[in-house]
């Protein structure tokens, strides 16, 4: 556990360092790249030099950057003229709603599919569908859903984040590829678990096939899925950028995209450091979940 935490800290430190190096590596003067397309006056320049300690040696700048990042101070967006922390705090809500809904939807879908498609033909159909979903760009899934359910049938709004109806298609778009991958992993795990001696024991005790599947095999199959949680987070956060664009939703993805196109580097770097932070938190949580699911790990 301690080792895990140490690795987490290293990842965070690496992210902050990479972010800092990216700032230095950006072409042109650092002050210019922080300003980007923002207002450029001698006063603002002086303020940037002071705030980022650009008149101090590089080592001190770097340590200072790390120190401030550790306290949650990620600099100011020069495009929006406000602290990056506030920008992220403002926009995290819609993205979080989208990501959590999609994660729940994707996991449920995968569980149902993996358990119900045990017959050979159902398995074939489902496997093909999984391959297609995993290989399709997520924006295409979104576009197809949008043109069928919004433009043709008019069931859901075309864009925005007003109410539950506007959440359905984006969440589904994000959930489908997730479900595709998770179903494959779950099915693989169930197959392997069904070969284990404890399944024979369970059957010998007279347990029904469904109980064997759900209570014994599925529980085993869940372990590799938890390993994928870091990956899941990546898909959801990376996917959010694209999905929010397709469906015109506000959120962290839109902020990131806007920051990249307008070269608002402090915001981009803050998003990177922030996502590293979320990643570390989620992975630590996954390690704890292992202990809950697998009693064998608790003993050692």
């Amino acid at each position: 556990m301690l080792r895990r935490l140490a690795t987490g800290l290293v990842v965070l430190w690496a992210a902050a360092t990479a972010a800092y190096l990216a700032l230095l590596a950006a072409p042109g003067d650092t002050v210019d790249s922080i300003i980007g397309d923002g207002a450029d006056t001698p006063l603002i320049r002086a303020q940037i030099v002071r705030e980022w300690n650009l008149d101090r040696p590089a080592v001190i700048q770097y340590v200072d950057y790390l120190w401030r990042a550790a306290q949650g101070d990620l600099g100011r967006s020069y495009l929006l003229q406000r602290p990056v922390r506030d920008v992220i705090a403002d926009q995290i809500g819609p993205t979080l709603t989208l990501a959590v809904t999609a994660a729940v939807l994707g996991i449920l879908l995968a569980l149902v599919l993996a358990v119900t498609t045990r017959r050979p033909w159902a398995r074939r159909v489902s496997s093909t569908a999984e391959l297609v979903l995993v290989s399709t760009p997520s924006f295409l899934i979104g576009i197809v859903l949008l043109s069928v359910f919004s433009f043709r049938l008019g069931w859901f709004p075309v864009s925005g984040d007003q109410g539950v109806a506007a959440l359905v298609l984006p969440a589904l778009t994000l959930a489908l590829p997730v479900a595709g991958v998770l179903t494959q992993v779950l099915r693989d795990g169930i197959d392997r678990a069904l070969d284990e001696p404890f399944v024979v024991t369970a059957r010998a005790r007279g347990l029904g096939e469904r109980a064997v599947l759900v209570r014994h095999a599925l529980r085993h199959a869940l372990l590799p899925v938890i390993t994928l949680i870091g990956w899941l987070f990546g898909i959801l956060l990376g996917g959010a950028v694209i999905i929010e664009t397709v469906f015109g939703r506000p959120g962290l993805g839109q902020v990131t995209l806007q920051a990249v196109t307008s070269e608002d580097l402090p915001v981009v770097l803050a998003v990177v450091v922030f996502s590293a932070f979320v990643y570390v938190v989620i992975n630590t949580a996954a390690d704890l979940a292992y202990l809950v699911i697998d009693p064998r790990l608790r003993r050692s």
Partner: protein
Amino acid sequence: MTIALERPLSVRLRRPSGGGVAAATGFLVLALVAAVTPSLFAGDPLAADPLHVLEAPSAAHWFGTDQLGRDVFGRVVHGARHSLLIGVVATAIAVGIGLLLGLLAGLAHKYADEALSRSFDALSAFPLLLLALLFVAVAGPGTVGLVIAIGLATMPNYARVVRTQTLVVRQAGYVTQAVAFGDSRLRLVLRHVLPNVLGPVPVLAIIGLGEAILAAAGLSFLGMGPQPPSPEWGAMLSEGRGYLNVAWWTTVLPGVVVTLTVISLTVVGRRLQRRFEGRSA
């Protein structure tokens, strides 16, 4: 020996049917021919025709026409060159750097190995898309930035596999023997370690190529790649999006081609992987 795959994309499926593999191979050959000689299949991808704007698919225009009256099928065919090239170069960068760093990590002393491995972990901790966006933010949008971004972001996949292979190979009898014969370090690595480490890399690269093409399409959909009127697949999808309610074909059909390409690469890659595993098991 089994190859540990890092990406869940490579989770094993049922054995694909022979027909599926043949179809996938056929599609890839077509895509490759289209990329090399697009004029064989289609005319000028930039020729606008204001009299035939946003026409539905027909015998004359298989995929219909877009908002400027350009033939969508022709643009998709010509786009194959852009999209495949971006994917191939990005994957080549990833494989090249991954090979080098993986070898280094596998051969280095404990601390250097640990440092390199941790940095692979840290790099792959980030969503590919976010990492690529960071690179683009520093290097600016455009094809070159896009290619480098995807290459660097997918590099750890290869580096990890190469490192694991290197650790195995360096224990092998022929390496010990070469050391005993007093081979120079460079010769040792080039003659004995490298050739035996390479094994799983080509197959991984085929599957990884699909991933790179997907990522490139996603990034250029966001406007980070080749700029219009270049007929790159992701850019086409992005351009057609504004006409979705009147002309679905300008976005959906190019998208289907991207999907077919990635599926084909995955199917062929998995088949090769199974053969490879069967041989060395």
